[in-house]
């Protein structure tokens, strides 16, 4: 079997890592266990019949008051929207992201690029169900979730329970699924940095390890009820839909991966022009369309104006960024490229992600323009200057755009839009900007170190890069035994 190299020693290393992937949560169990008493009781509370629960449908909540819903009180409209949002976010990865990336590579690597998004989707789904959701979104420990949801066990007994901390008005199955789609796209984004040269076996192991060792902890820190980085924790950073958790995180991992893999053979001398940008336009469009599940879905309900305002902010920032990138490029390079327009749109989507539930339309416009200009500079000029080979600009767009958006969230957040978010400009709360910087810094450093370790282990054991010949001939035929004839 070719999957795990050929030497006993290397195989050993790989098996160790595979074990680590599945074992990671076990290792994390110790600190988590300390929290068990409290979190267990909260789960118990949520599954106990809510005595005084009103039988009527929930009244529309004002966006200030925290409404407690009884366990069976699924709000059908909230449920409908969150199911739809989950499906939209899944569509962002397959086929959205898959096509966005596949259109930019050379013909011989199209299928391998599609296989990365598709394979990651399958693998992460299973890992998420086994343990990912449990360590990311349950419990009240500030650093890591607990183990109660191993194999999603609590859902076996009652389909109507809710994650009362985070999503009280929808079934927990839906919230778990919604968050799963985030967990899928985040590692999948990294593929943009390692295009055209990574072994598929190493890629899958990397995806799995990174999910459990990097994504899950960070998601817990920022989004769980008492996570230390988020609004329920000591730092109090705002990240509506994942500017740091998703985009800065994936971007940073991409940067590390690009550096550790090295440049693609022929870069600078051969023609690396995208084979079929039509695919990339389809992909970018589906990313845009699906992103409403991402941002407006992060309201986790549809019974007040939160989701709608997040949707409006998303649309405005995205369009502004697409125009900004296009016009800057038009002026600098004399032509508005299609790749520029769609990259600008993605940059806008990325930057508005952390801000979407906190800013008003004008704030969204400003963030969009900033994202278009800054990401253009980073993806086109900074990369050239420094010289790493972030093939499809995972760092340049997601890393830079995510950090930019996170910081600007501190600037533009308005408590009139969301009482949980008081920003600098409208509410005079400069402290929020500092919290955002802390969030960015911590996520960046943690991700950098951990990604380096994971890829380092893989490099020393099974190797992460294909042979020169395989790279030359193309990944499609060599890794997957297929080619695109069209």
């Amino acid at each position: 079997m070719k999957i795990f190299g050929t030497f006993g020693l290397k195989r050993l290393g790989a098996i160790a890592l595979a074990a680590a992937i599945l074992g990671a949560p076990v290792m994390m169990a110790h600190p988590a266990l300390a929290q068990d008493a409290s979190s267990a009781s909260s789960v118990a509370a949520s599954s106990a019949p809510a005595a005084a629960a009103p039988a009527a449908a929930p009244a529309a909540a004002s966006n200030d008051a925290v409404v407690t819903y009884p366990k069976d009180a699924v709000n059908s409209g909230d449920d409908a929207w969150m199911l739809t949002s989950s499906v939209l976010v899944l569509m962002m990865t397959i086929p959205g992201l898959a096509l966005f990336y596949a259109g930019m590579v050379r013909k011989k690597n199209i299928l391998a690029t599609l296989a990365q998004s598709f394979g990651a989707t399958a693998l992460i789904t299973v890992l998420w169900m086994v343990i990912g959701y449990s360590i990311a979104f349950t419990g009240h420990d500030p650093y890591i979730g607990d183990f109660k949801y191993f194999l999603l066990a609590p859902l076996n007994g009652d389909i109507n329970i809710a994650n009362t901390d985070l999503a009280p008005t929808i079934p927990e199955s839906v919230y778990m699924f919604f968050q799963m789609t985030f967990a899928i796209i985040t590692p999948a984004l990294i593929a943009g940095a390692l295009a055209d040269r990574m072994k598929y076996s190493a890629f899958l192991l990397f995806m799995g390890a990174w999910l459990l060792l990097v994504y899950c902890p960070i998601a817990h820190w920022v989004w769980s009820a008492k996570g230390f980085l988020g609004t329920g924790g000591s730092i109090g950073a705002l990240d509506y839909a994942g500017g740091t958790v998703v985009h800065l995180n994936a971007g940073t991992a991409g940067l590390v991966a690009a550096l550790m893999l090295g440049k693609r053979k022929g870069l600078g001398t051969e023609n690396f022009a995208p084979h079929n940008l039509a695919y990339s336009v389809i992909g970018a469009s589906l990313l845009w369309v699906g992103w409403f599940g991402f941002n407006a879905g992060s309201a986790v309900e549809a019974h007040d104006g939160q989701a709608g305002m997040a949707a409006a902010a998303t649309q405005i920032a995205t369009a502004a960024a697409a125009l900004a990138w296009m016009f800057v490029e038009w002026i600098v390079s004399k032509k508005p490229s299609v790749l520029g327009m769609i990259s600008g749109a993605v940059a806008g989507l990325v930057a508005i992600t952390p801000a979407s539930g906190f800013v008003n339309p004008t704030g969204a416009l400003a963030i969009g323009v900033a994202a278009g200009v800054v990401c253009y500079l980073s993806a086109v000029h900074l990369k050239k200057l420094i010289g790493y080979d972030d093939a499809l600009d995972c760092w340049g767009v997601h890393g830079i755009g995510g950090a930019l958006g996170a910081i600007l969230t501190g600037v533009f957040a308005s408590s009139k839009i969301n009482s949980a978010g008081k920003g600098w400009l409208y509410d005079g709360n400069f402290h929020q900007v500092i919290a955002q910087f802390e969030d960015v810094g911590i996520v960046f450093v943690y991700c950098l170190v951990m990604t380096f370790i994971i890829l380092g282990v893989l490099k020393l054991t099974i190797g992460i890069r294909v042979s020169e010949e395989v790279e030359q001939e193309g990944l499609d035929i060599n890794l997957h035994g297929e080619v695109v004839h069209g």
Partner: protein
Amino acid sequence: MKLIIAIVKPFKLDDVREALVGAGVEGLTVSEVKGYGRQKGQTEIYRGAEYQVVFVPKVKLEAVVDDAAVGKAVEAVKAAAATGKIGDGKIFVVNVEEAIRIRTGETGSAAL
């Protein structure tokens, strides 16, 4: 018999074909090719990287004609393919020793 090889601009294909037919050529074969010469290719830009496309799209027509018809055929191509701009292309003439029509087995001029 001679093989006339003409490398011309793609949008001239139909004109050249009609001219050849007008000159009595009854069959020809066309390939899409990329040319390198005085005419420079255009520049593609992708996220700041410029790719000088050194090759220019061309079409290659190949027609085998009777010795007697060569002059007329060459003239026809010349007239039809010319725009006066760089990159109009070339005509080459190569000797052909034998020609066979597969369907009938005819050989020589009868096979063309």
